[in-house]
């Protein structure tokens, strides 16, 4: 990211958040710095309440690294979300990132992981006890 930029918190997050029924699906599109990670965490915790979400899927495939800070932020996100009644599944951890995380002995406590979005949705279904239909119906009912 060359060139002058305003301080971290003011920059738009390169993250898209989809509301899929009872779930929030979060795709991170570029590398995020520390303040952006924190901003994302705050935003999602607020969103869980607003959308009455039961689950969050965070797709980290586009993140260049998952270092100690990113890992800690994800762990905190999962902890906080769980306190607000939502389970968190992290998907898309690349093989080389997994190697680096093991080398650093980083652990994603409270965080469930799955290979990709599809498996992540399946896992969320098991965790929340909602069938695919229920998850969607919940969403559509609220939309009325």
């Amino acid at each position, binding site marked *: *990211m*060359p060139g002058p*930029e305003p*301080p*971290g918190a003011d*920059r738009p997050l390169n993250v898209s958040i989809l509301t899929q029924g009872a779930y929030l699906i979060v795709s991170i599109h570029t*590398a*995020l*710095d*520390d*303040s*952006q990670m924190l901003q994302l965490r705050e935003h999602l915790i607020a969103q869980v309440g607003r959308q009455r979400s039961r689950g969050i899927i965070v797709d980290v495939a586009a993140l*260049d*690294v*998952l*270092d*100690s*800070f990113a*890992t*800690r932020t994800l762990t905190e996100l999962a902890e906080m979300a769980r306190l607000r009644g939502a389970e968190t599944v992290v998907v898309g951890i*690349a*093989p*080389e*990132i997994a*190697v*680096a995380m*093991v*080398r*650093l*002995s*980083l652990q994603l406590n409270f965080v469930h992981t799955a290979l990709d979005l599809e498996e992540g949705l399946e896992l969320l279904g098991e965790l929340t006890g909602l069938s695919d239909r229920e998850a969607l119906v919940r969403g559509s009912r609220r939309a009325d």
Partner: protein
Amino acid sequence: MTDTRSQPGPDDEVIVELVPMVRKIVASRIRDPEVVDDLVQETLARVMAARSRVQGDTLEPYAAVTARNLVASLARGNDRARAKTHLLADLEPSESPAEDLLRQEESSLLAQALDRLPTEERDLLLAHEVHDQDTRSLAEHRDSTPGAVAAQLSRVRAKLRVEYLLIQEQVEPPTDRCRPVLRAISAGDRRRQRELDAGAHLLGCDCCSTISAALLDRRASAPRDDDVRVPISRDADVVTARQRGREAAARLGFSSTELTLIATAISEIARNIVRFADHGDMVIRTVQDDRGRPGVTIVARDVGPGIPQLREALQDGYSTYDGLGLGLPGARRLMDQFDVVTELGKGTTVTMTTWARRTGADQPTTGPGRDTGSRDTGTRADQPPTRRSRGDDT
């Protein structure tokens, strides 16, 4: 002019007959005999060019009119030149008054800078640059070789640049180290810069960091070397640093796992600078070991408070802010070589290196199903991470 023809044709004769008449017309209007000659010739040239278009009996009046027109247009040209003289006069001596002033200032700065050089060096430079003496004849005078003279000249120029900038900025370097560091940067001498630890000095010395910016600007247009420098002061810089590190290592053919390990280590160390030291920088350098194996070295420097308990800080879980305490020990685990030098109140320098694992003959692999994690451990045993600490016991 017509005499040059050995055999004047009938056409030429007609033209030659016109000369006295044309000369009379022009001479009656213009005094300067040279201008008269010019105009007569110009008239004849035009008449000759128009010869085919003009009927024989109208040639004489055509010549007369042409001559008169030429005289008139000359007069108009002169008038215009006279009328515009004042405009031209201002433009000619210099592009603008400011430019002239700048040139004067520059030459006075340069003269002052030259004054600061030792006599011998100044004489050498002037002999070469002003009096155009080539390096060979200079070498003969001095019992030296042309190569040595050229090297000396480039050192003198580097020195001159430094003095020039110091005078321009009107500063006197605050420490004894400033001048050597600036000269090394000006000369682009990497070895000397490393010896002097120029980067650390620049971070701590405002004067030198201003001056060196101008010197580095100059070098930026010269062929680039492999060093990448990333200033670190805020969160976004951490991302930039790890991306630059990844790019540099990718050019050396590191695997994508190795690239991620390097990027992660950079991320951890760069974050420490933002958290503890406010600002610093990272230099990413491609290196080679004795066997020609390429590697990437990252030097992270800051002028922060230093690390009071280095030994503890290098252990897992030691954290002074509410982090995981994995910054230093984590980066150390990710890289082949790791070295911390810290001085309380002065700052911290972390130097870490990872060597590329060739999949070729010189680096036997453990098998087709090897994974990058386990093979790193083998290499690590040959090169135990080193650690130096200064001043952590005080």
